[in-house]
């Protein structure tokens, strides 16, 4: 009886997998998902506690109002930028060679943004009143722009995800789904354009949010017109790390599945794009840091050394952010000989992503930890288990959604070539 049910499940599962695609057995797949499902369940429970009892379940307080969750939000939104940037390159700049990675970019973007919105709902609290931010917007706040843009962009990503979802082997058997998928897919360039506009502004506004904090000299920056320099640095760093993160995700899936999923040359192209943008970002970040240390910060009464006397936030972090995790990967990603070797390329991509995450961590945590008033002390913050569990829940959610998408959807459908050779050729 049990074996018959198992056989039936296997047959049913096989019918949902695209024809010609080899996937691991259902039992192994479920085994892979089960630990992630446990982490997700614990995360949901922790999130429930935070929503029910409030933010006193966390170790944040009125002084340390941003913690692990905001770092996670900023990090995954930056890494998820590969979605809009790949769409921009393929649909707007017509870089067709990046098409094989487009679907996976959309799924990664969808996971990152939906995860970020979920964690923001817990952080902000009272999700049933979320509509207030739209109905009574404070247009003087960078956060309003972030909320509007992220909500709209998540809608765009969901719409871009629908055609991929409808290409599932069973769903596509419904003619109405298949035709809607076809028609929606034809309009995806419009969505890609809208996504680019929205991403440009919300990535920028997330950075701008820190740059306008006059009461936090560690983050405060001068800028252009209404935008502080961090507005532009966040955009640059996001589009630099997005392609690197896509490379890492794809390489991880290739490693786990033991299959080559994209043309080998694609990694080099993504690496080069990422490397060039990272080099521009590092140059801009260096100039910005020099201006901040020598002009902006002294003008508000802070000597540069004051930021770096509190361990572990010493100057090595600044060095790591700009040189080790910025300049070095930029060089490795663009230098022909290192980019030709897969190991170097992926290591450089990992360094680039780590650099962007470090930047978001520093701006979130160090900004709040460093004292700003004479009677202030250096603040320490350690996330509560509820914060860590919610964090883990979002990561587990991402792994589960990606695993299901990889198994049942055409994430890496290679374009089929057409060749004609006439007799006598």
């Amino acid at each position, binding site marked *: 009886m049990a074996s018959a049910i198992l056989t039936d499940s296997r047959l049913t599962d096989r019918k949902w997998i695209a024809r010609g695609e080899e996937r691991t057995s259902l039992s192994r797949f479920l085994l892979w998902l089960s630990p992630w499902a446990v982490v997700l369940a614990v995360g949901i429970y922790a999130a429930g506690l935070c929503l029910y009892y409030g933010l006193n379940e966390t170790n944040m307080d009125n002084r340390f109002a941003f913690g692990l969750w905001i770092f996670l939000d900023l990090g995954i939104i930056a890494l998820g930028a590969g979605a809009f940037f790949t769409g921009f390159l393929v649909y707007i700049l017509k870089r067709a060679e990046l098409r094989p990675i487009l679907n996976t970019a959309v799924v990664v973007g969808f996971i990152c943004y939906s995860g970020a919105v979920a964690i923001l709902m817990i952080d902000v609290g009272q999700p049933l009143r979320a509509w207030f931010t739209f109905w009574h917007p404070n247009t003087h706040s960078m956060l309003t722009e972030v909320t509007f843009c992220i909500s709209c962009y998540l809608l765009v990503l969901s*719409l871009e995800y629908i055609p991929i979802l409808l290409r599932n082997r069973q769903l596509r058997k419904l003619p109405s789904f298949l035709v809607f998928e076809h028609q929606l897919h034809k309009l995806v360039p419009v969505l890609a354009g809208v996504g680019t506009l929205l991403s440009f502004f919300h990535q920028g506004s997330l950075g701008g949010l820190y740059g306008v904090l006059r009461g936090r000299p560690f983050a405060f920056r001068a800028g252009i017109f209404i935008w502080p320099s961090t507005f532009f640095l966040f955009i640059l760093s996001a589009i630099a790390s997005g392609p690197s993160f896509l490379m890492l995700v794809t390489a991880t899936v290739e490693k786990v599945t033991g299959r080559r999923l994209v043309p080998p040359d694609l990694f080099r192209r993504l690496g080069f794009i990422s490397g060039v943008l990272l080099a521009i970002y590092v140059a801009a970040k260096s100039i910005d840091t020099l201006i901040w240390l020598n002009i902006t910060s002294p003008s508000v009464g802070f000597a540069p050394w004051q930021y770096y006397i509190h361990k572990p936030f010493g100057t090595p972090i600044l060095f790591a952010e700009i040189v080790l995790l910025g300049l070095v990967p930029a060089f490795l990603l663009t230098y022909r000989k290192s980019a030709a070797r897969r190991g170097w390329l992926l290591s450089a991509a990992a360094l680039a992503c780590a650099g962007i995450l470090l930047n978001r961590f520093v701006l979130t945590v160090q900004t709040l930890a460093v004292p700003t008033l004479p009677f202030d002390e250096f603040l320490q913050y350690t996330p509560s288990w509820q914060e860590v569990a919610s964090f883990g829940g979002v990561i587990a959610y991402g792994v589960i959604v990606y695993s299901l998408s990889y198994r049942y959807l055409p994430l890496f459908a290679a374009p089929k070539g057409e060749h004609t050779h006439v007799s006598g050729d």
Partner: protein
Amino acid sequence: MFPGIDGFYWTVGHVVFLSLFFAVVVTIMTTVASAAWRTVRDFRTKRAIELCWKSDFAELPESDRRCRHELAGKVISRACDNAFDCRHCGKYSQFAVLPATGLATALALNYSDDRLYHRGHTWVKSADDGTFTIGLDELADHLVGNPDSVEMPEVGTELEINQTAWRMKKNGNEIRVRAPLDGTVVGVGGSKEGWFLKIRPRLDPRDPRTLRHLLKGPEVHGWLSRELERLQLQLRAPNTPPALADGGVLMPGLMDAVPEADWNTVLADTFLET
């Protein structure tokens, strides 16, 4: 968000910000509405079936999308890029005049010259009254044997080419048989002599382009030998290497005889499913 609601001010920043936001929302909603409207329009104009077939065709493995002229040995290698619609193929006449060089060997299957064949394993035979009879070809018939259930279209049903003409179920697998030509169903028959449909074609059968997309002569032989080769590979015992053909005859009721085979894939390949 709107004038009159608490929090709204007639300032430049407010108006510009909200206008931009509403422009984005309207663009997104218009895009979705446009896709939905086009979908409805495609169903009304019956273009939906053509779109579905083209989408399915694009998903077929390249080995299933070979040009008929390759099957007949007129060209060495050519993948069809026109969804098997030779009626509107710009290259058809260029290749049709070339001599067929394919070798004809005995395949031990009854593929009569008085019929035309569709890649979804159906045959088409004309009758004196201007109608056409459509049935499962010998290979498909050998695979399926006696289906557990059959769902035939009603008389009067309008069929589009490559649309599902009828459905069968066998051992838990659903099989969708594609219509080889457009027309109105004028008769349905079964089951002793095999299930079949009678169709009155929509286009003039005297026009040579009406049936041009169907295989005939040496093309049938080339196509069928490849299909048998595929079947032999797919039905071989697990973990055994491909073996040369032994000259045997295809046995009837293969789905019952080899239940352990990956019928999901075999049936999809045979009936041009994705």
